[in-house]
């Protein structure tokens, strides 16, 4: 999987989250969009929804089951990735992990 494919997966997951949001509150699908932390678009439910949607999409697309939050619980506060692009890096790292 390359970076663009990973970004597409993050955008698909943003679509899932956006379906729970009003038209005037949609998260834009840009690589630098801040998803969590200061200025982030997601609350805790949105964050978990995004993570689970990414994991499901990765399993569908590449047939690999990954745990983005392996060992870190599901709290926003313990998560380093903030932007869509940093989520891509995490996806690629998890997929290539032994």
């Amino acid at each position: 999987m390359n970076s663009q494919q990973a970004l597409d997966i993050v955008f698909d997951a943003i679509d899932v989250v956006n379906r729970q949001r009003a038209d005037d509150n949609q998260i834009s699908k840009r690589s630098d969009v801040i998803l969590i932390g200061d200025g982030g678009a997601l609350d805790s439910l949105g964050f978990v929804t995004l993570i689970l949607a990414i994991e499901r999409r990765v399993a569908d697309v590449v047939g690999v089951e990954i745990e983005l939050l392996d060992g870190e619980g599901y709290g926003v506060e313990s998560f380093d990735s903030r932007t869509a692009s940093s989520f891509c890096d995490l996806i690629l790292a998890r997929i290539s992990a032994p």
Partner: protein
Amino acid sequence: MNVFLISDFNAEAAGRYIGADRSTPACDVKVAPYGQVFQTLASSPPFGRDSVSFVWTRPEGVIREYAQLLGGEVVDADQMLREVDAFAEAIKRFARQTKLVLVASWVNSKNGRGLGMLEWGVHGRAFHLAQMNVRLATSLAEAGGIYVLDAARWIEEAGASSRPPKHWFAMKCPFSEEVSQAAARDVKAAIRASIGQTRKIVMVDLDDTLWGGIVGDDGWQNIRLGGHDHVGEAYVEFQRALKELTRRGIQIAIVSKNEEATALEAIDCHPEMVLRRDDLAGWRINWNDKAQNIVDLVADLNLGLTAVVFIDDNPAERARVRDALPDVLVPEWPKSPVSYADALRALDCFEQAAITEEDRRRTRMYVVDRQRQEASATFESLDEWQASLDVRIDISSIDESNIKRSLQLINKTNQMTLKTRRVTEAEFRSWLAADEDRAAFAVTVSDRFGDLGLTGVCSWQRSGENLEIVDFVLSCRAMGRKVEEAIVHFVTTVAKRLQAKVVVARAIPTARNAPCLAFWQRSGFRETEKHAFVHLVSDGYAMPLGITLNSHVTADANQHSLRDVG
């Protein structure tokens, strides 16, 4: 519309889908803290009486005996049902404080085979779940304003991944986003039905929609319909799905670019047609613009464009109608006819709070009306035609036998309605019961062509010397036949018996009830202030000629009957 969501699990996602859903009405959603179902049901809803509540629980979250069953214990089936009764009672008590309560039926929230071949034995969860659901639905059906939604369909729609274990472990929601989304769609559909926003007619194309092929080119003998052909079978199934709708009171009409005689010959003669001319409320079969044909047909049938669903296999025709008539619902349509019936049955715009005898007979009423209109062409004047109809009107108190249809009429009528009041059955009952000077009547109309059914409702509030009309509602089927005047005659006659001196009608104008306002402006009542019409009882009010009025109520008897209803 305000929606309050009560659940034993984290149903926040469903709440967000309801809030984000673009269909009308827009909803503001509040989700109760999860896991506190009985405490929440014992308290007051945060939005007050005019709100909707949605109760979505896992059976093991509210029925302790069932939770023990899931744990492999031997349980007391009677105790389990007693717990279901207690849950139902809690919902019914809560429902008295809110407009509408929607309750999700219980589904299995865990994956796995359970007891396998013993699942439907006396220790199986499938067996007990079915019993509990029937008990819950039966108990809740006794109360007005509570509807059980079929959660099993949400699971089906979501497919194999409807219960991802990670959702439960990560956010205490046993269901996937797809399940929550399907639940939200059903909640919105039920809310729309409760406020009368239901589509009433499907206008459907013919060639490659109702049958395969082009009847004008191929001849009716060669269109694809039934036969030993899976595509032909699919068209028959689509027609069956349309016919099912007519039995719920949804009408079917044809809008097609064709030669009318050729198309009607196919409808009349093809041996495998399911829909015949008598199943159709009307048709526009010609070479004109379909959008214009829809407008004309809607006017003929006395419906609004918001009542219409338009189905056509041709994307260009769909785009044209969508563009020209934004109030018409034009669903995207599958390419393969094999999927047509499923696509129709999946539409959530036909939801109804009740299905009445009038609904089941509505197509027949439209057919009779067509015959009536055809007959009218033979008369020289409207009065002559009116007199020939031999209109008979029966007016009786609203009671248990007619309250559902009366409420349906109040809530669905947009044109001949004085105040466009929207009210649940419980609210209407309590409105009547609250004051013995209130009364409500159902109006049934028939003529020499047939029975139009319960087509009118009238209610009033008497205060001092005034008798003020509250509901003055008449179905479009009965409009313009002097039934309006006959009802006013009845009201004035009863007002005299009640020793009232003045009859008052205050209209609340909307974008769609102009016909009602126009009636009152020509009614002979005096418009003393804007949209307020008054009439002295001592002046009497003439009964229109050629109409027979049977009143099954006296003033006194009526008051007693209405107290019983309340």
